[in-house]
């Protein structure tokens, strides 16, 4: 234990420590994107179809999440939790705040995708006897998804990098674990390059998947 504290070279243990941090980053991203997307789809559809007196207040609330820096949201939520006596771990707070943050952006992506489906196409669907719900599931969602995918991929990658901010409320994720090692071995450039490489390796598959889906769909349009 003490020997490793004074060891100033990058060891396999350090890499393992960073990979564990990367695991936390992935879990944060997973929950944030899952929660944010589900909420975003619900809010986005509500915003697309509801009258102004539902739309305007919902839009205003979501604007709060889009306008205040994520860091402030995290710190405020973490303090607020203590004040009202909810016993959530910092990890849970991070997931919830990130999910709400993502949902605010996802709402607009879903809404614009939804509204990109021409009214005439939806009329054609209804004229064939499809119900309102079938029109949504068979026509609107598949078309809207193709419109929204590139923005959604971009948002997901953005949120993955934004997870680094939960460091401030005490979660040891990839960036925080890198910082711990930097403090000990005093090689910031080297350690942060490795951290950057790990971030890249986590983002790359998502970006590739998005590009592939986009290409396949474009060939049909």
């Amino acid at each position: 234990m003490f020997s490793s504290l004074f060891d100033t070279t990058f060891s396999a243990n350090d890499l393992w420590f960073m990979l564990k941090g990367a695991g936390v980053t992935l879990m944060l991203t997973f929950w944030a994107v899952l929660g944010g997307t589900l909420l975003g789809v619900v809010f986005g559809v509500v915003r697309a179809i509801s009258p102004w007196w539902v739309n305007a207040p919902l839009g205003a609330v979501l604007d709060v999440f889009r306008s205040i820096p994520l860091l402030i949201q995290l710190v405020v939520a973490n303090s607020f939790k203590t004040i009202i006596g909810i016993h959530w771990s910092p990890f849970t707070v991070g997931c919830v705040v990130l999910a709400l943050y993502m949902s605010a952006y996802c709402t607009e992506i879903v809404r614009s995708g939804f509204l990109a489906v021409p009214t005439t196409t939806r009329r054609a669907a209804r004229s064939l006897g499809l119900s309102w719900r079938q029109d949504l599931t068979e026509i609107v969602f598949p078309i809207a998804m193709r419109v929204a995918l590139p923005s959604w991929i971009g948002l997901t990658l953005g949120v993955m990098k934004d997870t680094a901010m939960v460091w401030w409320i005490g979660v040891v994720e990839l960036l925080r674990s890198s910082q711990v090692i930097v403090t000990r071995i005093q090689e910031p450039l080297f350690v942060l390059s490795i951290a950057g490489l790990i971030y890249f390796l986590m983002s790359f598959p998502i970006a590739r998947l998005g590009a592939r889906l986009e290409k396949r769909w474009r060939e049909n349009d």
Partner: protein
Amino acid sequence: MSIEIQDVHKAFGSLEVVKGVTMTVEKGEVVSIIGGSGSGKSTLLMCINGLEPINSGRILVDGTDVHGRGTDLNKLRRKIGIVFQQWNAFPHLTVLENVMLAPRKVLGKSKAEAEAIAVEKLARVGLSEKIAVYPSKLSGGQQQRMAIARALAMSPDYMLFDEVTSALDPQLVGEVLDTMRLLSSEGMTMIVVTHEIAFAREVSNRVAFFHKGRIHEIGPPAQVIGNPREPETIDFLKSVL
């Protein structure tokens, strides 16, 4: 078995576009509706299958009040096919899937049954070779024929056509009209809103001339197109022929 339109009024906001239209289309009849832009003819079609609500009057399809309380519009629409000016292909589905969708989801047919129906209807409109491609690979005329096949797949009793050739390049109009000729020769009941006066004259049992939201003149094509009585009809025909 008929479509009965009884003193129908329809307004968009303060603009009344259909101002008291009454007419009956019997099963087996082909009725063409001609008239200038904004004369309310397309709007009337949308009202017939309940895509647009009406302000007053009544539309009965086989005795069912289209706009009545408790009318199951999704069910009623199974027997009324409609083809639009914009062909409205579902871009994420292949030609075959476009036609299969409603039989599967609305009529609850199995995949095999729906496919058999779709293959047959696509053959009738001459698209057998295109069933596996996506609509974006089709010409406008082909997309419009696909839209006709899609409506026919529900085995409707009535077909409504809303200026289906207006958005097509001139050289593609013929193939769509041919498909409609085929349908009328098979005895399909059709209401055709069109600017193709020669076509209307050829296939229709009756022609209705719409002017300012009303039926101005209605009768056999030889009369309304061949020998119109009203000055407005004469002016309109002069402008389009």
